[in-house]
């Protein structure tokens, strides 16, 4: 007599400081597949989880931003290698969200290639965005890009390509981030977290929260230890609310724009989370 094997299901938790805790609130919400059938319960993060994420991101910032750009590029490339290894899993998860096989495969491939593209930028940004400034005096004068700090990211609904397209540009330059994943399709984000956790990316560089955007985003936007906000996945109303809250400590805000995530991303998202530092020194004997 043979019995059908019972599947071992995954518990989808949050990703904070390199660990996978449940929401401290003990809450979860139901994630359905494309047909409306039950897929999983995802953690429904709370204000406290946001704050824990920011603490972890702040703690990780000095170390991550002090890595050599070469090292950051290597780690991000390693992430792409791990993504490639889990290609089939991501395709399956995207199909669960309602995508057809070809569309799901294309999105996964595009996401991996996007990640590789950003990985290569680590040691090129300063050359492209910096400058040696010809000032009218005996001074050495150099401008270089530096990471802004902790970036709060409201990820778009494109569950994998959109997600990697907002995370990679934030962290490649040395920022750390707290990400609120797509509300209806958060499961690929947690699988991505599993990839990040096994790719030499230091804990805390990326912190992933699942839950209700309208509940979480304002806490990120008003948190005084967050330096910048990417509102890619925020609705119009939520954008206004977050932008107002962000004014309190003058966060850099990247407003949502019509986004075709398959299009060439350009430098916009990386530039949005960079500061320019200019160093002067006299020249003389």
């Amino acid at each position, binding site marked *: 007599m043979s019995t059908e094997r019972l599947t071992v299901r995954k518990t989808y938790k949050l990703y904070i400081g390199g660990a996978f805790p449940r929401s401290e609130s003990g809450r979860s919400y139901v994630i359905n597949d494309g047909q409306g059938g039950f897929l999983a319960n995802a953690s429904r993060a709370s204000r406290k989880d946001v704050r824990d994420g920011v603490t972890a991101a702040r703690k990780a910032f000095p170390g991550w931003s002090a890595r050599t750009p070469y090292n950051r590029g290597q780690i991000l490339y390693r992430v792409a290698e791990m993504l490639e290894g889990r290609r089939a899993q991501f395709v399956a998860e995207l199909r669960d969200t309602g995508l057809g096989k070809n569309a799901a495969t294309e999105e996964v491939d595009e996401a991996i290639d996007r990640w590789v593209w950003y990985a290569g930028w680590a040691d090129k940004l300063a050359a492209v965005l910096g400058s040696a400034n010809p*000032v009218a005096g005996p*001074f050495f004068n150099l*401008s270089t890009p530096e990471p802004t*700090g902790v970036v709060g990211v409201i990820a778009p609904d494109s569950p994998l390509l959109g997600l990697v397209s907002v995370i990679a540009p934030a962290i490649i330059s040395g920022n750390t981030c707290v990400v609120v994943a797509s509300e209806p399709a958060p499961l690929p984000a947690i699988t991505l977290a599993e990839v990040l956790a096994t790719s030499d990316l230091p804990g805390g560089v990326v912190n992933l929260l699942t839950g209700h955007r309208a509940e979480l985003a304002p806490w990120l936007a008003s948190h005084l230890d967050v330096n910048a906000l990417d509102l890619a996945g925020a609705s119009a109303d939520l954008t206004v609310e977050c932008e107002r809250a962000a*004014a309190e400590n*003058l966060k850099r805000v990247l407003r949502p724009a019509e986004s075709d995530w398959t299009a060439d991303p350009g430098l916009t998202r990386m530039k949005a989370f960079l500061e320019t530092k*200019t160093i002067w020194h006299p020249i003389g004997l």
Partner: protein
Amino acid sequence: MFEYAPAPESRDIVHIRPSYGLFIDGEFTDAKETIKTIDPATEEVLAEVGSAGPEEVDLAVRAARTAFETVWGPMPGRERAKYLYRIARIIQERSRELAVLESLDNGKPIRESRDVDLPLVAAHFFYYAGWADKLAHAGYGTKPLGVAGQVIPWNFPLLMLAWKIAPALATGNTVVLKPAETTPLTALVFADICRQADLPPGVVNIITGAGETGRLLVSHDGIDKVAFTGSTEVGRQIARSVAGTSKRLTLELGGKAANVVFDDAPLDQAVEGIVNGIFFNQGQVCCAGSRLLVQEPVAEEVLARLRTRMATLRVGDPLDKNTDIGAINSAVQLQRIRDLSEVGEQEGAERWAPPCELPEKGFWFPPTVFTGVSQAHRIAREEIFGPVLSVLTFRTPEEAIEKANNTPYGLSAGVWSEKGSRILWAAQRLRAGVVWANTFNTFDPASPFGGYQESGFGREGGRHGLEAYLEH
């Protein structure tokens, strides 16, 4: 101490009219309401200027829009460039007049307005003139935003105007600019310079007024871009007011810069740098080195030399060519400096100022240093915007960086050491938009300027300064 005979710069070169209108669409138009601007060194009224209300702000924005759509936007970059070159040249030609007027209206020493402000103003226009037909090579696209609403402070009235108008015009935008309430006069002469240069009407509009005029401007629906230099508090309000709009925003706000002196610093140069860092322009500088962090082994010696040097600073008539420290710009600002200095004493810091005679009329504050300051003291945390230095000490380089970065601001920082690797080590770790190593308060149109954190965002100057005015 040497005795100096008075050496006043002649003010005959300046002809101040009793009243000025608003400069809208190439014409001076009388405003419905007016305000007075005074000489802060004598408290005499210099002139009456317009105070633009809603209708006048609207007229100015409309004029700028029309000029953008019909003339300035479509104009080839090389033609725009030539207008900017013309303006730069006329500024050079009229530089003494502008310098004297700046000192009269602002209170800054003529030595600074003549040798720092005015040369930089002309250089800024000259620099951005050259970009106008080279935007395709700058990396930020070539499409202007439209109409820029710009609000500037009173500490460097004409220089801040140049920082705002030159890049905006070079990139094909038109502007409505509001100078500060207490220092409108050089901006109004600039309006005349625009006419002398035959700049098409509406490309530059100058509307004078107080805070309410600025608020009307930045919240006007007809502008595409807001550029503000001023206090962090007003910066926050502006950031809130543009939330939910498509307006682009750059802010250059306050600071509380650390000037870090290591024990191997060239002390004579460092003392000059400390003095320049905090007493330049009466300390009314957003990037002023207002927190001196000095390494313990040299702290006593640095302070002794600093006090000796401070005793030679000459406070008084801004138009006297020997004056080092002029008048504080307004009674309001003077009160703020006094209040915070009193708080410094109440909180336990030790106050010292050299003996100096201050004129009876006008707004004056002697160069002042506070020692025994802790990081928790308000004078170590808040921007005083006056000639008041707070001195803290440190033992290790790591401690210096931690203290230097322990601020919500991040506009500038200074570092003094003879050791190259230590300079670069510190410069890398200081979280500030401008790091002056073995120098302080140097500026150049080719060099980007702007802050981290609550010192604002965006850069002015250099190739980076174009970004704020282009669609990309």
